[in-house]
């Protein structure tokens, strides 16, 4: 064993010495593999980074969730020429109940009503973006509680005047831990700040995460009682009046397998109860699948480009090794005359090729790690180097050495020593 090992090491050294005799030639021969392996590693890093980014964004949305948003239907918009008209659209309280009651796989549904109200905390006066919802929200959109608590079922039942600030809203209002228990005025009513929770930001596909830019949460029951469903907005010189019961419903399905069938069921149900299409369903899981499909396509396209450059690199190595065999015909003859077996000549040349391609692979690997780092630094694009993306290209470069070195090595072993020794 140890004899075998030391022999291999000596063979490798012999290979390196031979390659060092022609430094420039060896270097140029390596370049093909360098660029091939470099592009494979860089590609894997960029692809992995992109998919990891997509995954975390989708995770924020919840992979078991279905998100339904109210939308103003298109027909509605075009007919909205009279000022006095009131738009009534969107999801209803009834929709929320039906979703909760009819679908066996729905674990929970959290309704959300979006309002903007002038608010005051201490000396800060601001218009806040407020979500009226139930306790289910905090389960479906789980965020770390930074201080105090979130509101519960009882707060919703009791029409409690409690508010939970997001980190985002708290920053605007200059709220701190000490704000817990303090009163906040929202739209003329007084609420008590009971907690502050962490904010997340992000987007997956065209879907924003549910708590994007939300300042505060208050119980849905309280919103209905205090502010009703009627909205009035000023836009482009005209007044827009709207009645929207719910802006969003987040549905959590018990098993990931049931997400898509349940989404289809909900869609059918909403179609039956809504005259216009004034809602839109989004399934983060579908986005996840789409992201995976995109990644696959990306990998296939870049993978084939990388394979072509690896192939070109391999052919370059083979070409040089064939030339090298011809150049060293006499050496081969001498070795054979002394007593080298054909197998030993094959091994000698094969090792030389593998050393060349592996060195190329290592340089390429360094390049493939450096390039994504530069991309991340300058373009802010996330890249990820995994163990797989290091080991795989190294195996490939060893493989290239063997595949493209075999034919030249066999050619070397076929040399007839008598003719080779006469060779000048």
């Amino acid at each position, binding site marked *: 064993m140890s*004899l075998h090992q*030391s*022999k291999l090491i*000596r063979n490798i050294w012999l290979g390196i*010495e*031979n390659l060092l*005799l022609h430094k420039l030639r060896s270097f140029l021969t390596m370049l093909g593999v360098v660029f091939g392996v470099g592009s494979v590693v860089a590609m894997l890093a960029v692809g992995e980074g992109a998919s990891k980014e997509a995954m975390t964004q989708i995770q924020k949305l919840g992979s078991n969730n279905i998100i339904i948003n109210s939308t103003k239907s298109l027909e509605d918009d075009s007919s909205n020429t009279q000022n006095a008209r009131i738009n009534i659209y969107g999801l209803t309280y009834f929709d929320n109940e039906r979703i909760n009651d009819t679908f066996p796989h729905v674990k929970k549904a959290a309704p959300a009503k979006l309002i903007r109200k002038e608010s005051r905390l201490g000396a800060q006066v601001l218009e806040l973006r407020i979500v009226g919802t139930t306790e289910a929200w905090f389960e479906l959109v789980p965020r770390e509680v930074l201080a105090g608590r979130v509101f519960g079922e009882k707060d919703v039942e009791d029409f409690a005047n409690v508010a939970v600030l997001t980190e985002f809203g708290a920053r605007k209002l200059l709220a701190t831990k000490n704000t817990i228990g303090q009163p906040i005025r929202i739209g003329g009513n007084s609420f008590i700040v009971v907690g502050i929770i962490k904010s997340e930001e992000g987007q997956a596909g065209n879907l924003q995460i549910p708590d994007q830019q939300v300042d505060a949460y208050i119980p849905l029951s309280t919103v209905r009682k205090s502010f009703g469903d009627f909205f009035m907005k000023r836009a482009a010189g005209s007044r827009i009046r709207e009645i929207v019961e719910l802006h969003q419903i987040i549905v959590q399905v018990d098993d990931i397998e049931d997400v898509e069938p349940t989404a289809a069921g909900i869609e059918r149900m909403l179609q039956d109860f809504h005259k216009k299409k004034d809602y839109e369903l989004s399934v983060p899981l579908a986005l996840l699948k789409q992201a995976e499909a995109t990644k696959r396509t990306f990998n296939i396209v870049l993978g084939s480009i990388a394979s072509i450059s690896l192939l070109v690199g391999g052919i370059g190595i083979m070409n040089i090794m064939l030339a090298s065999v011809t150049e060293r015909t*006499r*050496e081969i*003859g*001498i*070795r*054979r*005359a*002394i*007593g*080298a*077996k*054909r*197998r*030993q000549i094959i091994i000698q040349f094969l090792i030389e090729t593998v050393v060349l391609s592996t060195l190329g692979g290592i340089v390429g690997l360094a390049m493939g790690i450096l390039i994504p780092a530069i991309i991340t630094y300058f373009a802010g694009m996330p890249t990820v180097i995994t163990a797989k993306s290091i080991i795989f290209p190294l195996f490939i470069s060893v493989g290239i050495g063997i595949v493209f070195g075999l034919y030249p090595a066999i050619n070397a072993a076929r040399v007839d*020593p*008598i003719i080779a*020794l006469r060779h000048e």
Partner: protein
Amino acid sequence: MGIVRFENIHKIYKMGVEEVKALDGVSLSFEKGSFWAVMGASGSGKSTMMNILGCLDRPTSGQYFLETHDVSKLRDDALSDIRLKYIGFIFQSFNLIPQLTVQKNIELPLYYLGWDAHKSAERARELAERVGLETRLNHRPAELSGGQMQRVAVARSLAADPHIILADEPTGNLDSHTGTQIMELLAKLNTEGTTIIMVTHEPDIAAFAHNRLHMKDGLIDRIEQN
């Protein structure tokens, strides 16, 4: 019984329809410890005979025994083994490997015998001393004179302790003074027991051998004793 024996060896090269009978039924026996000079006109089959003796080539027909081996029946790998263990070659054009140092060139047979690096280096130094090149171990062949290169070749041919040394015009590329030095080296090896078979055109080189074998048109013409 000789250390090498040819029994009716033919070597025929087919060139299209024409046949060249390089060896045309040669039978001979060389005794262990003998020193032969093979002579004859150009094209008489001397190198062909040496190649078959050295197991580099196979006869078209006939039998060749080397010690106890029936060489004519052996496969390529086995022939490599015989060359490695029994035979040392010395060529007219030295045939050293240019990118290897003197030491590595001398070590070459030991490498294929699987010796470890330390033992090989020791043996190479000892052999270099024997041919008077101990100060040149780290030189490359291109930095040596013809006579020095041939001495390296002699050292290399001795590395694996062969039973027979085959030398095809070993002094052909050397001046007569250097040639004589190489011959003195070979003569000394012969007194130590190595069988030597050497091809030469020069009578004063052939004078170092004990016996002379004259070839003519692929056949043994005559045998003389010195």
